[in-house]
């Protein structure tokens, strides 16, 4: 047990000092509680604001995604149509014209301007001809 070095205060002086300390603690508690409420309120406002902002961002992104989806579907349809209809016909036309060019020198001069650089790529495209230089 520690023994106080100073003589114990008389009851008449100890009571006001204890009350003062208690009041001080209560004041601190009130102040801390007020700060806690303030921080929690601010945090709530921040969370709600960021949630609303994210929600709007999601809506905007969804609209963009829908637009992209429509574009992608249209392009996909056009590419599919080309691959199934136009490409085989074009390939056949190039083949026929190449055969004809062998027999007709006049046309051969025209056909030779169109250089066939490949036999279709992954798009199942017809021979991708490019005008000769």
């Amino acid at each position: 047990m520690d023994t106080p070095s100073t003589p114990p205060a008389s009851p008449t002086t100890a009571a006001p000092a204890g009350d003062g300390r208690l009041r001080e603690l209560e004041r601190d508690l009130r102040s801390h509680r007020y700060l806690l409420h303030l921080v929690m309120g601010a945090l709530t406002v921040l969370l709600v604001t960021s949630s609303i902002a994210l929600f709007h961002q999601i809506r905007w992104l969804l609209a963009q995604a829908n637009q992209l989806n429509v574009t992608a579907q249209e392009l996909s349809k056009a590419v599919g149509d080309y691959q199934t209809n136009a490409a085989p016909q074009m390939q056949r036309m190039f083949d026929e014209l190449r055969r004809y060019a062998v027999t007709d020198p006049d046309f051969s001069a025209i056909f030779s301007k169109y250089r066939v650089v490949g036999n279709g790529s992954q798009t199942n495209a017809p021979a991708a001809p490019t005008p000769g230089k």
Partner: protein
Amino acid sequence: MGKQSMLTSVLLAAVLIGAGANVLIFFRYLQVLNTAQRLQLQAQQLQAEAAVINRNLAVARSLAAESLELARKNPGLANVMRQFTPLLQRLQLNPLPR
């Protein structure tokens, strides 16, 4: 004192609910962002394909136009070109009369 404690509880609940909602919305945001990026990539690939197709069509149109021009004086070539009337219409060219 009870009133203060009640306010603390209400605020704590609000913070927890707000944090939970925020996390859920954030994950949804990531999900939508991922979908949008995937679609964008797909659209870019399709646009590249469309560019190749347009180039092919332009070249085919040019060759067909020159062939048609010559075919007016050349019956042999005219016979060849008549086979491709649907394609010529597709290429917005006037096919030879039958």
